[in-house]
């Protein structure tokens, strides 16, 4: 299992908003354990809600990193609140929309929504609402060894922002 929980960036508005999508596929091994068939009950593959929170954290993390020109090391410090109203099953697409609430030297707070899109009809319905906080690690955890290029995602995002693989 790779640690990449969004597939594409659709929109990135500096310091304000980021929209991404993640396709949920039965080919992802995590769905085979979550949840397997047992006895008479068929398998019930759904994307774990914790990993949907991670998708939002990666979406919001791009927005927070971008706001600081990717000079700050950004880590998820808190899941302020998450509320789920549905489940993400294979064959659907999750659209993450993250918005910035606050941004400062120490960190940032964000909120956003996740929607389930049916790629066949284009219809969407609410999946979750998630509020997060990020910490700028250098301002809060002095002395902690942390590599310069801390995240593949952020490097990938650099490429995305530069126009490589950026849709549209």
């Amino acid at each position, binding site marked *: 299992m790779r640690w990449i929980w969004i597939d594409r960036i659709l929109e990135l508005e500096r310091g304000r908003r980021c929209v991404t999508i993640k396709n949920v596929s039965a080919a992802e091994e995590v769905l085979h*354990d979550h949840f397997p068939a047992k006895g008479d009950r068929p398998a019930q593959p759904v994307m774990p809600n*914790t990993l949907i929170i991670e998708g939002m954290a990666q979406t919001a993390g791009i927005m927070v990193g971008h706001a600081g020109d990717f000079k700050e090391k950004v880590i998820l410090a808190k899941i302020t609140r*998450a509320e789920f109203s549905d489940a993400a099953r294979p064959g659907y697409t999750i659209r993450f929309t993250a918005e910035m609430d606050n941004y400062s030297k120490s960190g940032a707070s964000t909120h956003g929504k996740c929607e389930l899109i049916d790629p066949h009809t284009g219809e969407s319905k609410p999946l979750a609402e998630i509020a997060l906080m990020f910490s700028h690690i250098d301002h809060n955890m002095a002395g902690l060894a942390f*590599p310069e290029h801390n995240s593949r995602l952020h490097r990938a995002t650099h490429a995305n922002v530069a126009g490589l693989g950026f849709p549209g």
Partner: protein
Amino acid sequence: MRFELIDRVVERQADALTGIKNVSAAEEYLADHFPGFPVLPGVMMLEALVQAARLFVAGPEGEWADGGASGNISGNNPGGPLVVTQVRNVRYGNMVRPGQALVVRVTLRKREGDGYEFQGEGTVDGQVAVQGRFRLEPLNAA
């Protein structure tokens, strides 16, 4: 990989369960999180709490033996497996690296209808790595 975030249950009480998630460099997703600096992702700490809470609800007989932590109590439950539907103020402190063990402890706060509310805490070498509240509900309840 298997989506199994509790390796061992070490203690059961009337209102609580303690389990262990061993973190190993052999876990492939750590290569992405982060390259050259593997640490257990924060949401995986939350997932360990969620799976510990499922094991608590399943009880000592449960279906732990054949189902494992990820889907174990679904067999007789018409609502399907329990999933996390609400998270409140989950905070991260210390990081957890390969070779370290995250000791998670979940305590039942209240039961409402089909739902269970838990307080959870995970420590590494006695230092708090994660803590917060969450709610489990059957997958097919909605």
